[in-house]
């Protein structure tokens, strides 16, 4: 006898988190553009504030439209729940601020989005939280860098911009042996290409600005908890396992078990730091998610076409994409990312910085801007933009050269993309 079945990914992408609106029958997710919600009476108000009843109080803490997005992403990732934030960076900050105090320490991959590198390497240091950076493909270096005050291991599913594949099974084993959670930035892969919780990650976040939205019209982030990490057993997270004077002496783990992290993140992090998502933004990102399962295969297919084109072009020094046999993480990518390695990759032009500049300025279909994961194809020169704060030495460690160009392959006709790139490559070599 076959057992019951879960809804498929495509169905969840369209439906999870929302029933037709009970008040109006609206099939589309309504945009609840409201700051606050009327209480039925004084006791109802008190019960909501004291978490005796489910519901919404103030849209900084929760909002019905935003809640649909949160539940939908949690469903697609296989998590217990999620919190939508003002940006991907806000999601990373919320995770760190929920788990750590001044004096805590993080071990992170050194192949990160420049903004994350800034937050961990510079800004959080001002608040007493230090980070040690190690190569993403070296679980043993993650282990060696762990200190008594370490509270988190962190990396990107696909590093930016070198596409180093984080060995989530190995790094999560290192983390769990030390009683620590592994947080991953899953922006480049999306739940369609990989579900990090199935490989051992405990927490993840997305810059929903990228592929989840896909349209480039809204900035947002989503932080998701697997609910699998046992905070009580770890003994290192008093934020979740000891009474919190800031919320009626609540012991979040005792109160809610699998939901402890999200409960504190919402009840403290959103309440006090306030980096919430606006309902209109949630609606816009939901429109993108409804077609994620259709867009991602096309993104990957077109990327493979472009990668092959560039790899065989004499103007190109090298192409960095894990599906190419020469990529150092080729075997790991085949294991963890069988559906594809995403649509963002970099290549090195012959001729260095000046050739890179001529190349970018000759492009007509690709847009030169600081974003990835749009339906439109994008291009950027990391050394002068996203990673400009990094020293040459740090750039080299992250696998970035002066002529490195990063592409984000969109959904245009692939022939038009090849024509545009071919013309620009010729211009670069003049």
């Amino acid at each position, binding site marked *: 006898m076959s057992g019951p079945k879960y809804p498929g990914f495509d169905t969840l992408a369209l439906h999870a988190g*929302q029933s037709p609106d009970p008040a109006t029958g609206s099939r589309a997710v309504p945009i609840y553009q409201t700051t606050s919600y009327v209480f039925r009476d004084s006791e109802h108000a008190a019960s909501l504030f004291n978490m005796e009843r489910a519901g919404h109080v103030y849209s900084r803490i929760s909002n019905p439209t935003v809640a649909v997005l949160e539940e939908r992403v949690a469903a697609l990732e296989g998590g217990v*729940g999620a919190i939508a934030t003002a940006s991907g960076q806000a999601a990373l900050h919320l995770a760190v601020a929920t788990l750590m105090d001044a004096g805590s320490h993080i071990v992170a991959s050194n192949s990160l989005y420049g903004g994350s590198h800034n937050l961990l390497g510079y800004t959080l240091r001002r608040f007493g939280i230090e980070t040690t950076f190690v190569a993403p493909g070296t679980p043993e270096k993650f282990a060696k860098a762990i200190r008594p005050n370490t509270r988190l291991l962190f990396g990107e599913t696909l590093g930016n911009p070198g596409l180093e594949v984080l060995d989530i099974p190995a790094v999560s084993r290192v983390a769990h042996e030390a009683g620590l959670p592994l947080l991953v930035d899953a922006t480049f892969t999306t739940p369609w290409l990989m579900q990090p919780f199935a490989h051992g990650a405990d927490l993840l976040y997305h810059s929903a600005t990228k592929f989840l939205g896909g349209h480039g019209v809204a900035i947002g982030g989503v932080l998701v908890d697997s609910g699998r990490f046992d905070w009580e057993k770890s003994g290192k997270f008093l934020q979740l396992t000891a009474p919190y004077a800031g919320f009626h002496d609540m012991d979040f783990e*005792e109160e809610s078990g699998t939901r402890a992290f999200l409960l504190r993140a919402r009840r403290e992090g959103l309440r006090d730091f306030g980096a919430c998502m606006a309902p209109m933004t949630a609606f816009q990102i939901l429109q993108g998610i409804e077609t994620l399962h259709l867009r991602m295969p096309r993104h990957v297919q077109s990327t493979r076409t472009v990668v092959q084109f560039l790899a065989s072009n004499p103007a190109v020094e090298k192409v960095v994409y894990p599906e190419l046999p020469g990529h150092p993480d080729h075997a790991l990518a085949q294991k963890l990312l069988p559906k594809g390695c995403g649509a963002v990759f970099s290549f090195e032009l012959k001729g260095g910085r000046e050739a890179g500049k001529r190349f970018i300025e000759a492009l007509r279909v690709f847009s030169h801007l600081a974003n990835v994961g749009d339906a439109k194809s994008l291009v950027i020169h990391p050394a002068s933009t996203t990673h400009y704060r990094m020293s040459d030495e740090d750039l080299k460690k992250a696998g970035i050269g002066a002529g490195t160009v990063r592409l984000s392959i969109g959904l245009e006709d692939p022939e038009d993309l090849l024509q545009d790139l071919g013309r620009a490559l010729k211009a670069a070599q003049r």
Partner: protein
Amino acid sequence: MNFAVDGRQAFAYTAAQAHAPAKPTIVFVHGAGLDHSLWGLQSRYFGYHGCNVLAVDLPGHGRSEGPPLASIGAMADWIVRMLDARTIRQASIVGHSMGSLVALECAARQPARVERIALLGTGYPMKVSEAFLDAAKRNDQAAYDMETIWGHAAQVPLGGNPNPGMWMYGDMLARLARLAPGVLYNDLKACDAYAGGAEAGAKVKCPVLFILGRRDQMTPPKSGLAFAQMLPQARTVQLASSGHALMAEAPDATLDALIEFFRA
């Protein structure tokens, strides 16, 4: 709160309130493979509204030391010894699914000590399919999938969670992932083997409330309604939109039914 029962560590959630002997006590008993935190909203409400609450983790569940108890009768006796350990003379008992059978047995065995019982997501007999039992015996993921899917109304994966931002299926699966091997099988077997419902029902004289979900796939309402007819004093509340996980799927309606019952 941790304390000892039979020399082993036991845990009950108290809403961070000290026990007040003058207040009535309500014991909340979870279902198969689960723990106290399923009662989060409801137990917290009563803890802040004039009651002592003890949302227990049965042995081998949540924070209570194992091994799990093999029968509904043994679980009921443990609840009584737990009350002894807390020096509580009388209490009401609210039970969900397997916990509802435990509440019924407690009331039948200790009529002087049990003031009221509320039985949620219940039915009698509580038979479990061979396929479910077999998968649980093998600690197969299929058993956790059955517990998760049948444990909620069919619309849950496509509907909205009243608790903002939470995914009910994911939460259930995460809870079950923390369970020691064999515990779910132990519980399902105890439910399946329980044959004392009619006898216990005849002995229960205290007020009884049934709260049933009309979309319950685990213990269909037909079974719950038949069970309620065995207790003539019972009141029954049916929640139209809820499946088996009443406390999560319809938290406010479940709480409102309990408030009305305990105010009466």
